[in-house]
């Protein structure tokens, strides 16, 4: 209690007032007077009396200082004093302070922004209880093409009955059901059909009502549905009465049983979850490729490790390989943690960005260290003076650190604000998918920025502090020429320059590669024309029979064709940039067949209407498909050029037949390649087979217009409503938008790396300029002397050029080495460019060399134009 009170008073004592100081002086004064009077009374002379009183007291100033120290907390008081002093120093040279603040703000801001993305995608815990126990199960071919890891339904049931590792196992697939709630118009939703244990796998609890279970998932259970928070708000206005309401989904009466909280958003963007009602008995016989369309996830039993689950999956796979040699022999299950599944594809890009921003920060730090070093040199006399007045090394070092920490906190503050702005800007410009992970400046990010500040403050603060540690008091006080400008300081600065140059080179090479890659990605021919094309999707109920859907779609095709502004209309099962995972394997007529090793593997597409003209794919050989082909049992097909190139390199494919377990298909035509059929337009073009539509209920329409495509949307809605008032259309987009969305990530990566590289180049040049200019200023007298004894202006300029060129060359050599060591990390981000590309590296060297020479020449010219007489007289 007592000491607490004392501490509080001492803390308050940090803010000493002048009055307190006066009072102390008055008390000392009165003390001395009392003592002197006593002494006089004892018979001393006034002089003796005063001397004795002061001696007995132990010195007035010493007593005052002891009193003051007891009055406050010396450590904090010193700190505050250093802080005040540092602030004054920085305010005195605003140019220096602003330069350093901005430089650091760039470095810290870039790193904080990138870290917030890393935090959101790779580090933050997933919003599911014990998320590390959730795995994704994938089915892949031992050789040849797989279907994106998707699992067939029979194999899912095999997993269910044979595993001993999973506490819960679920499949789901995507649908676009049409929902009619009360008197609302039919609307197309993003739906997910899932098996009963889906909710147990993700450990998800509903906000209202309940989720469905295995019982609801049985074949003939009544239809139920769970809404997402967003869909609940949109359709039912957030009314809790929605629970228990009857709605029509896919023409069936369905009960809404639950609403999920807004935090549950898996799969991203889902509006509605429904039981899939799969029954093993319905699937038993058929195990072919066509059914591989299920996403499978599992939650591990509490005592089962990921490794054990892998082993279990391997055992099940080999058992199935033996049980079903005809269909399952070349397939194997594997698993992946949920986090890897969700964010694995972002990892290479984030790693590259993290390295790039780290390099930028290092460059910024070196720049600031160089500036501080120059400043320390000019402050040498001040430090020597403080030393002579009794400042200890510790006090001087702490003064330096406080100054550099203060600078980083300025920089860090501005940087954090920049990062917040940057993250917000990027965030609000991202299309779906990427912003699944809501990046934001949250607590870990702020802590990261803080740690970065302290670290950088120490890193660049330690160098000048170290240099001022041993200052020769005598010479420093006497001489005007600071010592740090001497040999060791110059060498250190040269080393800093080299490192900066080297790091800039790495960034430049990376940026140039990414720019070329983006150029190729977006500028090479796509194989189709995305301009002026509207696309939308219609999903009739899955129960609709082939004839009904054929009638519906041919009627709609006819009506849209006759709309004003429409050039051509076609239908297709999947659009470019969308990976449909519909792959089949074929034998080719007349070629030898090897067991479990099909002759040809290809992506399947189903087309109808005038798709080739609607999307602008050229017919290269043979004929197009006709509406009559759609009614044949074994219809003719088209192949793309890649198929012809891979499997008929020296033959005419027209008339050849493709054979698999579902039939025989004669090739009647070859059409051009289309990029993006296997997902991203960056992926290699794969062989494709185009079938005539065979009455599938779900189709994508492609409408080419000669007016802005957005203008015909309502006319199309009207036509659909006229044919069937219960049907909605969904996913209305232009093909252009789809393409833009698909290249947003490469664009973002490239933009960021290019920005980092430009900033790095700028900083490096500023660094070179600063060092040379400083060196010229420091050596003015020497230059004068050299000129006086006969050095030419060229020789003087060369003195400085040589010094900087040597550092630059060392840096470039080191940078080349670093480039060779790290640039392969870019490989997965590049399209059509090799990472080890000689012209690119040469270009980067040139881009780096020219400005750095310029940054040297300007101050070197100034050195050469010094008037020797003036330089010598200035002393």
């Amino acid at each position, binding site marked *: 209690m007592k000491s607490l009170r*004392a501490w509080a008073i001492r803390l308050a004592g940090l803010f000493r007032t002048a009055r307190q100081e006066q009072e102390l002086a008055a008390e000392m004064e*009165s003390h001395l007077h009392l003592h002197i*009077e006593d002494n006089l009374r004892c018979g001393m002379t006034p002089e003796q009396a005063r001397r004795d009183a002061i001696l007995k007291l132990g010195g007035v100033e010493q007593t005052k200082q002891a009193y003051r120290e007891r009055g406050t907390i010396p450590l904090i008081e010193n700190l505050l004093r250093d802080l005040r002093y540092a602030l004054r120093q920085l305010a005195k040279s605003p140019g220096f302070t602003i330069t350093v603040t901005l430089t650091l703000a760039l470095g810290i801001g870039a790193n904080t922004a990138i870290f917030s993305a890393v935090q959101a995608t790779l580090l933050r815990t997933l919003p599911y209880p014990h998320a590390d126990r959730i795995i994704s199960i994938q089915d892949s071919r031992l050789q040849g093409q797989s279907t994106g890891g998707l699992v067939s339904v029979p194999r899912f049931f095999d997993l269910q009955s044979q595993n001993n590792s999973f506490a819960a196992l679920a499949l789901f697939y995507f649908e676009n059901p049409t929902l009619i709630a009360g008197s609302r118009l039919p609307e197309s939703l993003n739906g997910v059909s899932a098996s009963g244990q889906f909710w147990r796998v993700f450990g998800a609890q509903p906000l209202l009502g309940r989720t469905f279970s295995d019982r609801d998932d049985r074949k003939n259970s009544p239809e139920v549905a769970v809404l997402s928070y967003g869909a609940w708000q949109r359709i039912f206005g957030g009314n809790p009465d929605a629970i228990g309401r009857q709605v029509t989904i896919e023409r069936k009466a369905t009960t809404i049983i639950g609403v999920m909280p807004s935090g549950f958003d898996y799969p991203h963007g889902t509006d509605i979850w429904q039981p899939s009602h799969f029954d093993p008995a319905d699937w038993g016989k058929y195990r072919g490729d066509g059914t591989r369309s299920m996403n499978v996830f599992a939650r591990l039993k509490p005592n089962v490790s990921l490794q054990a689950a892998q082993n279990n999956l391997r055992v099940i796979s080999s058992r199935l390989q033996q049980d079903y040699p005809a269909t399952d022999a070349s397939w194997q299950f594997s698993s992946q943690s949920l986090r890897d599944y969700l964010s694995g594809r972002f990892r290479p890009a984030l790693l590259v960005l993290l390295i790039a921003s780290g390099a930028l920060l290092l460059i910024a730090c070196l720049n600031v260290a160089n500036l501080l070093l120059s400043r320390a040199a000019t402050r040498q006399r001040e430090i020597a003076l403080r030393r002579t007045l009794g400042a200890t090394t510790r006090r001087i070092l702490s003064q330096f650190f406080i100054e550099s920490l203060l600078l980083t906190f300025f920089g860090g503050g501005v940087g954090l604000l920049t990062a917040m702005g940057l993250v917000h800007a990027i965030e609000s410009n991202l299309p779906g998918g990427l912003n699944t992970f809501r990046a934001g400046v949250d607590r870990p990010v702020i802590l990261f920025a803080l740690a970065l500040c302290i670290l950088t403050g120490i890193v660049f603060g330690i160098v000048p502090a170290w240099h001022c540690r041993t200052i020769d008091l005598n010479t420093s006080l006497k001489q005007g020429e600071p010592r740090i400008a001497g040999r060791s300081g110059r060498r250190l600065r040269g080393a800093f320059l080299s490192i900066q140059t080297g790091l800039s080179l790495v960034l430049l090479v990376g940026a140039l590669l990414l720019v070329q890659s983006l150029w190729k990605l977006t500028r090479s021919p796509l194989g189709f024309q995305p301009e002026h094309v509207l696309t939308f999707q219609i999903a009739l109920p899955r129960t609709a029979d082939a004839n009904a859907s054929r009638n519906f779609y041919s009627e709609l095709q006819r009506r849209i064709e006759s709309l004003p502004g429409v050039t051509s209309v076609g239908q297709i099962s999947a659009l470019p940039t969308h990976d449909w995972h519909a792959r089949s394997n074929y034998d080719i007529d007349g070629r030898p067949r090897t067991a479990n090793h099909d002759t040809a593997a290809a992506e399947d597409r189903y087309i109808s209407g005038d798709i080739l003209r609607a999307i602008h794919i050229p017919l290269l050989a043979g004929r197009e498909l006709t509406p009559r082909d759609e009614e044949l049992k074994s219809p003719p097909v088209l192949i793309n050029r890649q198929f012809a190139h891979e499997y008929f390199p020296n033959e005419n494919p027209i008339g050849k037949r493709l054979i698999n377990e579902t039939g025989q298909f004669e090739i009647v035509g070859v059409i051009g390649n289309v990029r993006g059929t296997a997902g991203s337009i960056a992926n290699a073009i794969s062989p494709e087979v185009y079938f005539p539509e065979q009455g599938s209920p779900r189709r994508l329409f492609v409408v080419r217009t000669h007016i802005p495509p957005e203008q015909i949307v309502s006319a199309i809605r009207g036509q659909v409503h006229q044919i069937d008032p219960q049907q909605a259309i969904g996913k209305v987009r232009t093909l252009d938008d789809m393409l833009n969305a698909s290249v947003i990530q490469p664009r973002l990566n490239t933009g960021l790396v290019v920005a980092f590289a430009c900033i790095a180049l700028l900083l490096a040049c500023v660094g070179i300029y600063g060092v040379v200019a400083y060196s010229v200023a420091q050596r003015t007298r020497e230059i004068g002397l050299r000129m006086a004894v006969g050095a030419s202006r060229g020789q003087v300029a060369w003195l400085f050029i040589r010094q900087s060129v040597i550092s630059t060359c060392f840096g470039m050599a080191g940078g080349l080495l670093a480039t060779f060591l790290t640039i392969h990390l870019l490989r997965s981000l590049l399209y059509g460019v090799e990472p080890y590309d000689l012209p690119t590296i040469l270009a980067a060297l040139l881009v780096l060399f020219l400005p750095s020479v310029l940054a040297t020449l300007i101050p070197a010219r100034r050195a050469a134009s010094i008037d020797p007489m003036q330089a010598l007289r200035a002393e």
Partner: protein
Amino acid sequence: MGDKMEVWQGTLALMVLRTLETLGPQHGYGIARRIEQTSGNTLTLNYGTIYPALLKLVQEGSIVAEWGVSENNRKAKFYKLTRTGRKQLEKETKTWEQATEILGRFLSPKGDPA
């Protein structure tokens, strides 16, 4: 100087409190003087050291300070014992008496604890 003793750490506060109890309100010089006299001039006391000790006691609430006028009409800061200070004095006196008694028993020449 050689046979004089330094003031032990921590005892100065006790001496100050005791002095104030005996003399009543007193200024810093008076307290220092009195401590020296009471010790029979065997203690060397830098008078200056009394001031941080006084400040500490003020901070702890054992004494209070007030400006007043000395007997020979000089302005001086007078220190006065508070209730807390009295209690503290009582407690610390007891502690010291016990400590010296114990030490005395150990150090007495015929201290053979038979």
